[in-house]
């Protein structure tokens, strides 16, 4: 039953991309590419090929969890989201805060005693863990910092790249 459902989902996703019209699954159109790290200072913005990822992964829930309304596979998530309908916002930043440790976010978290998702990752953490985690697991895809987003001039200064190859401190001790 579940593999049958998968096939439908995959077919629909690919179909949605190929005709590049509003997807059959949700109201919002599925973008072919997304510019990430738009306000990055140390690393440049870069283009994420969404269409290519849909084709190779074929499973929206792998990245979007329950938000796209597809079948939730994680048994822990399925306890609540088994029959979740698609949410209005499916983008990462719709749920994952860009400032997960700001005083305001921490205070809001403390005040909300009923909250279940207490350990929800921030936006940066969620994206890096998802991308690097999958790329490392599949063994196919960039995992280095500059493989996705090249450093800016400011970034090069921040990481003191001009000192690369200089004698490390431990070399003197030996």
């Amino acid at each position, binding site marked *: 039953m579940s593999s049958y459902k998968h096939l439908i989902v995959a077919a629909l996703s690919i179909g949605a991309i190929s005709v590049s019209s509003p997807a059959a699954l949700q109201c919002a159109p599925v973008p072919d590419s997304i510019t990430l790290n738009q306000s990055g200072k140390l690393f440049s913005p870069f283009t994420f090929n969404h269409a290519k990822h849909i084709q190779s992964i074929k499973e929206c829930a792998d990245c979007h969890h329950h938000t796209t309304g597809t079948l939730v596979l994680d048994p822990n998530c399925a306890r609540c989201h088994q029959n979740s309908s698609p949410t209005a916002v499916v983008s990462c930043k719709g749920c994952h805060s860009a400032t997960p440790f700001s005083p305001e976010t921490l205070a809001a978290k403390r005040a909300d005693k009923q909250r279940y998702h207490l350990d929800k990752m921030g936006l*940066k953490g969620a994206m890096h863990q998802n991308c690097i985690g999958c790329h490392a697991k599949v063994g196919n895809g960039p995992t280095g910092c500059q493989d996705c987003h090249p450093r800016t001039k400011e970034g090069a200064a921040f990481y003191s790249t001009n000192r690369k190859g*200089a004698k490390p401190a431990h070399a003197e001790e030996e």
Partner: protein
Amino acid sequence: MKRRNFLKACLIGGTTIALGKTNKGWASGSFEGYPEAMGVLVDTTRCIGCRSCEAACNKEQKLPEPDTSFDDPSVFQHDRRPTAKAYTVVNSYQKGQPSGPVYRKVQCNHCNEPACLTSCFVNAYTKTQEGAVIYNSKVCVGCRNCMIACPFNAPGYDYDSATNPVVKKCILCYDTRLKYGKPPACVEICPQEALTFGHRADLLKLAHERIRATPDRYVDHVYGEKEVGGTSWLYLAPVGFDKLGFDTTLSNDPIISNVKDFLGMVPMVLSIWPALFSGIHLLCKNQEHGEHGHDTDSNQEDTKP
């Protein structure tokens, strides 16, 4: 009669003062940290060894340029410790293992009852209510007792200046960030969210929840929850902590417990001994005088007809 009362008062007074002082000393052992103290949970299963935290610390604390760039992986060949020029370092462990290397960020763990603070006789260290252990270089005399006392080898000494002794270590970005409730620079830059900032009490719950939810991912221990009385920095690990360079021989008692019993005796010695010995001295002296006087009196009486 007068003499006896005086001695009694001395003894009772001295004992109450001494007991009062030592009781206070014992009570400090039950201190479990400030309730509103902040902390950082380090999830070593998430760290990818990018060393961005080192770079961020270097810039935030205005430290000198590093010996080699912050994207140079050659530093992982050796275990490093924090120094006066680098308050935090990332080391690599389990390099030959199929599960890949495990990276561990090292810095001051900001103990609930810091050994550096205990060992400092000029009170250069302060444990703030926000959880940071900060340091005042103005009163430091450069004895470096704190460096010996620290169970985590956190404080580094600035050997460049002979006249101005300065011990340098992570201060949880207290001056620039923590004071205002903001996360330290290392936490903010971490791409993998391997560092989680929050109230220490909340972080402990998160840590145990992560272990409960994904038991295959972690060993069932939160390093820093109890070690040396608890630390503001907490660690989760995929393998035994001893394999990641952690000192797993540390007691759960704060370092101060090692010296508390001895130090508890100091006020007792200072308050009881003067009273006791001056009392004995006075007693002996008075007796001598009294007996002598009595003798002469009786002699005089005897010589009377």
